[in-house]
């Protein structure tokens, strides 16, 4: 590996020969001067050797350094190779996890479908025996199957109410299933929102009167643009919100209905409907649950014990299908204002 140049050997032998000559030579008159000259010659001859020897040492050192560096490099390479192997392993692990996740989400989708199917089938089938009970109870109650005592009448009336409540719950559940699923067809047409609101408010006129509630429909300054919506479904949204306002506002309270058109000319043109009341409101710590299925505010249950907790869920499903948003502002005891937006135009697919 380490090649020492021929110059080195040459000078080494040369200087050794001179030294040998100097020490072993037979000088007839070995004067001091003679010896001195010979010594100098020998030193001179040794010089290149010393020089070369130093060079060699440097070379050897350099070589050994590069050797260490090489080893370090090999070591680094080895490390990198291991990291690479590690990465490959991790990638495979990730791929496996990804597959697992995809399978899990597939299974989840299947469960969702099965759940929706279950809800739809059961609500259809539940309504058949419920209809039977309802009809029979009403026949007995009306005395059509023989005389009824006052006690019997009282309990039959309660039974009839219970059945009706059950039917409403089952129907709501079915409706929600249709509205949230892709089965529910939406028929979008041009709709005048103020007319829709007027009609819904009219439907409530008896209840408003009997509770002495004051409803104020704020007129929107014209022009009010037509919107593209499913009028039946959208009416359901308005009615569900109004129903809550009427239910949860104490007698002589106020309800305000308003259409806001401020965002009509914005990038995504939409109108906003506000239905506000000064009723019992929604406790702050329950507000994130209000749009969840079957949830009813703790104070709402006290005022009206019966209810399905589906009205706002249905409203949200419908508004979402229209591409709008629904939200509210409320504090317990300070009323609630519900807002929803409907885009002027539906995005055609």
């Amino acid at each position, binding site marked *: 590996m380490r090649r020492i140049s021929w110059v080195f050997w040459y000078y080494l032998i040369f200087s050794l020969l001179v030294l040998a000559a100097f020490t072993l030579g037979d000088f007839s008159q070995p004067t001091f001067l003679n010896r001195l000259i010979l010594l100098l010659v020998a030193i001179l001859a040794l010089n290149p050797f010393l020089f070369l020897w130093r060079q060699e040492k440097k070379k050897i050192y350099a070589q050994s350094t590069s050797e260490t560096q090489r080893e370090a490099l090999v070591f680094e390479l080895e490390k990198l190779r291991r990291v690479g192997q590690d990465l490959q392993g991790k990638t495979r692990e990730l791929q496996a996890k990804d597959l697992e996740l995809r399978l899990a989400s597939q299974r989840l989708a299947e469960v969702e479908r099965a759940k929706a199917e279950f809800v739809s089938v059961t609500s259809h089938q539940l*309504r058949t*025996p419920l*209809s039977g009970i309802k009809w*029979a109870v009403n026949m007995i109650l009306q005395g059509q199957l023989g005389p009824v005592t006052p006690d019997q009448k009282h309990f039959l009336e309660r039974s009839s109410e219970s059945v009706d409540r059950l039917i409403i719950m*089952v129907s709501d559940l079915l409706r929600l299933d249709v509205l949230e699923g892709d089965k529910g067809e939406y028929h979008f047409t041009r709709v005048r929102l103020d007319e829709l609101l007027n009609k819904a408010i009219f439907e409530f006129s008896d209840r408003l009167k009997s509770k002495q509630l004051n409803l104020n429909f704020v007129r929107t300054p014209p022009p009010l643009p037509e919107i593209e919506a499913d009028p039946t479904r959208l009416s359901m949204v308005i009615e569900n919100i109004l129903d809550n306002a009427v239910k949860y506002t104490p007698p002589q309270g106020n309800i305000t209905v308003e259409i806001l058109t401020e965002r009509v000319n914005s990038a995504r043109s939409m109108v906003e409907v506000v239905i506000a009341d000064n009723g019992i409101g929604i406790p702050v710590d329950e507000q994130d649950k209000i749009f969840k299925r079957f949830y009813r505010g703790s104070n709402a249950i006290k005022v009206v014990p019966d209810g399905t907790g589906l009205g706002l869920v249905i409203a949200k499903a419908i508004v979402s299908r229209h591409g709008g948003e629904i939200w509210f502002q409320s504090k317990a005891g300070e009323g609630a204002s519900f807002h929803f937006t409907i885009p002027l135009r539906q995005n055609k697919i």
Partner: protein
Amino acid sequence: MAEINNQLILIIEDDEFLRALVAKRLEQVGFRVAVAVDGESGLAAAAEHHPALILLDLLLPGMNGYEFLEKIKARDDLRTIPVVAFSNLGQREDIAKAQALGVDDFLIKANFTLDDLVAKIKERLGKS
């Protein structure tokens, strides 16, 4: 009203309890009643009795209510008999489909009482 009563109503309904209840109430108010449990027997009963009105459930075993409607509206001797669909299928697609097939009224079972049904039948018979 005298001529409305004693007329024959054909009830096509697979649920025995519901069938019995409807029959009972209709007989009470003075109608005569024929019953069938599915589309095929309903069609045969209609041809045999020529009822004044048919009460038709839509979800039936075998030939369902929609198929029954197609068949009966294709027959010259039976197509004029008024048909009132009563079902718990209440989605607008269901209603639209039945109306397209020529149904005269559509009632959702869970939403009415038998007295409402009687009123509806009388109203329909008075029209025809």
